[in-house]
């Protein structure tokens, strides 16, 4: 199985471990991740604005590379995944944006959102299959109580992301169960961590993030996993002692790659 891989900036700086372990896990599962040549930053939160064009271009470039390669693009970062999917959705559905982007980039064949974007978790669920993962687990995480934290970017807007039920998701719980651990469902698993407010008013992110971890703790979680570097940052900084790690850490450990 070959996929185009879009790491994103954070995975090259703050979250190098997320990148390294995602690649090693993919390899162990028989998935070849080809890093897109000359990829650029997805643009962070800016491309999501309806009247933006310039900041959408790098996401479209990545999608076009995937279209040419004929395989979906896989990302691990929740934010990149959100930007790529939403930009691609704009290219499929918004005539004005499609027209302006194509006039900017002048590709040989105009791009109209033909590429497919997958989050690493979607790839595990839909392409590899949780059953296959279950078979390949060498160190089952038996007895561990793990809470999944989705945050907002993976799930919303629900119809565009088409990732899971935005109000009652289950993909990460199924992932945790496949690794042999016990998935703890708690009410705040799809609430916002405070996101970029960390730059402006840390008190807010602290409040939001501790509410998430408190909810997880009350439900009996001993650790929490996330897919998003920003969520991880906010949750780890909020002052709660509940351990928060990337979901790839668990996969890495369960596959016996340590």
């Amino acid at each position: 199985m070959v996929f185009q891989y879009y790491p994103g900036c954070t995975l090259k700086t703050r979250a190098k471990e997320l990148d390294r372990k995602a690649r090693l896990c993919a390899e162990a599962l028989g998935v070849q991740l080809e890093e897109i040549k000359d990829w650029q930053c997805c643009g962070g939160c800016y491309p999501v604005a309806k009247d933006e064009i310039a900041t959408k271009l790098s996401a479209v470039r990545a999608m076009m590379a995937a279209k040419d390669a004929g395989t979906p693009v896989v990302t691990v970062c929740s934010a990149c995944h959100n930007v790529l999917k939403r930009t691609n959705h704009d290219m499929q559905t918004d005539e004005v944006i499609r027209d302006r982007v194509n006039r900017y980039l002048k590709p040989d064949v105009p791009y109209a959102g033909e590429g497919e974007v997958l989050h690493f978790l979607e790839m595990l669920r839909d392409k590899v299959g949780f059953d296959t993962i279950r078979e390949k687990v060498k160190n089952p995480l038996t007895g561990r109580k793990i809470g999944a934290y989705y945050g907002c970017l993976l799930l919303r807007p629900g119809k565009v992301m088409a990732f899971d039920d935005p109000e009652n998701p289950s993909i990460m719980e199924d992932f945790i169960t496949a690794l042999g651990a016990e998935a703890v469902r708690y009410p705040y698993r799809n609430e916002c961590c405070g996101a970029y407010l960390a730059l402006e008013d840390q008190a807010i992110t602290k409040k939001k993030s501790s509410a998430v971890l408190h909810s997880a703790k009350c439900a009996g979680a001993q650790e929490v996993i996330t897919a998003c570097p920003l969520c991880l940052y906010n949750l780890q900084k909020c002052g709660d002692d509940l351990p928060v790690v990337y979901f790839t850490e668990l996969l890495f450990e369960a596959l016996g790659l340590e």
Partner: protein
Amino acid sequence: MQRIGVFVCWCGSNIAATVDVKAVAEALGKEPGVVYFEDYQYMCSEEGQNKIKNAIRDYKLTGAVICSCSPRMHENTFRKAAAAAGINSFMVEIANIREQCSWIHKDKVSATEKAIILGRAAIAKVHLNAPLTAGESPVVKRALVIGGGIAGIQTALDIADAGFEVDIVEKKPTIGGKMSQIDKTFPTLDCAACILTPKMVDVAQNEKIRIFSYSEVDAVKGFVGNFKVSIRRKARFVDEVKCTGCGLCTEKCPQKKVPNEFNLGLDQRRAIYIPFAQAVPKVATIDADYCTMLKTGKCGVCSKVCAAGAIDYKQKDTFVEEEYGAIVVATGFNPIELKKYDEFAYSQSPDVITSLEFERITNAAGPTGGTLLRPSDGTHPKKIVFVQCVGSREDGGGCGKTYCSKICCMYTAKHAMLTREKYPDTEVYVFYIDVRTPGKSFDEFYRRAVEEYGVHYVKGMVGKVSPENGKLMVRASDLIEGKQLNIDADLVVLAAAIEPDQSARPLATMLTASMDTNDFFTEAHPKLRPVESPTAGIFLSGCCQGPKDIPETVAQASACAAKVIGLLAKDKLTCNACVAHSSEMLCNGCSTCEKVCPYGAISYEEKEFRMPDRTTRVRRVASVNPAVCQGCGACTVACPSGAMDLHGFSNRQIMAEVDAICK
């Protein structure tokens, strides 16, 4: 050569604001054959009609073109006026310059040009029009009511009262519908069962009414006055005639774990069951999905205990063919599924319930005997949060409905009020977008809930319900105070939007009755013909046409009955004059028309023809039954040899119109 008059209507400013009506009249006046033209403010008014009548007499007109609104609106009016003035009513043509011109264009110059073109096409057609005479067809003086809820019951009773026979087809084992599940009714708080069950008994005892319970409409043929309906009577594995409704079988059946749909799955029933004590007909039904005998052949308890010998495990679905003059659709509604609304945790906690489930919990005949208890642990809830507009009034992007479900504000006020009255120590919150309580004594009712019963009405929506430690943490916004609320509720009640029953869409296809995008049946006119479908002979009763409360449903049901009685009182109906006819000389007997005809109006016959050489030959040719033909024109386009043609819409007439438009 025809002598044609052109009459251009202003429709007040509806047409005249966008179309230069005088220019249209003058331009059309120059068309060949036009001997008179005139424009007038309201052509449909008595004065306007007199202008048409006078012109026909004074100028010896043989045809008329009215440039006005859609023919669906006033074709009949103008045809009658023409007939009164002595010309055949089919010599009148309408050029629709309102719906198809002035209402959809903004630029006066181009709209005027288009109006002239439309008028010119109508003139070209009138040149080829010929007088037509409509035939007559008899009326079967019986009505079918589909759906046995309060709407169907009321319509059936009223029709039967007028002396006509009525059959009710109900898909469930009993009539009664949603109203039978309700505890009390607003705004008077009288018991629903006390006012509904006597009506159900009236239906059962009425000699003119037959009930086909546990039955569905399988196929519909025919047309107004002459419908042929096939009714599938689903096997209930109990002989309806022999069963006395004693209920012994429903007590002895060993299969106890069947979700009880009458109580919305809040408790369980047996595999053989009578939905509720006052069911009509009071006959047991075996649920084939759960019956051990039907599934494995080993049990037979119900058969052993039945003293009447009514159990019949070998019963099969049977079909009944019946004829009716009119069909009433009364298929009702259902609350929407709440799977997609998990912000309210409906699928995560048994203590998040719908309003209909709340009705069952507070109903004396319900699973808790009428005591308000939480489904999870059977304790009294001390704090209840009601959420209105769940799935109603959403924008197009959401997963719910764009419309207002209309009944929720009132029943939520009722639930809140009754809770406070019976359990004064309970705190009750109602979250709303707007409180909409128009209706006789409705707003007073709502205000009583707030002012006398101390229900906390909060403007704002609930964002999240999270089950935590046996409580439901409700997070909501109070828009008036501008703050976020966190309520630790014991019970959350969701006022789910209502939608038409799932059986409505396939039924609409069978009846060729039109529906809107929400699957509500469309009425013939939203204001002036609210209980009739645009399809002749199909009538609408209750929520199948749009959300309604009980008083409104009953009023509409009676209105519907009045329309049905009006139809059944006639001995004969005037048929459509614009029917198809086949040229026997051109017909090659291929049967294409017979296959495409949706009304079964075309048959084939062997006919002897004399040939030019004086021999005779037998050929197979199409023949149209003019009483059945609805003039849809499907056969005329399908006929490969051009033998089939439609009176009033002949191929020549249509080509002349196209030529006039393209000139």
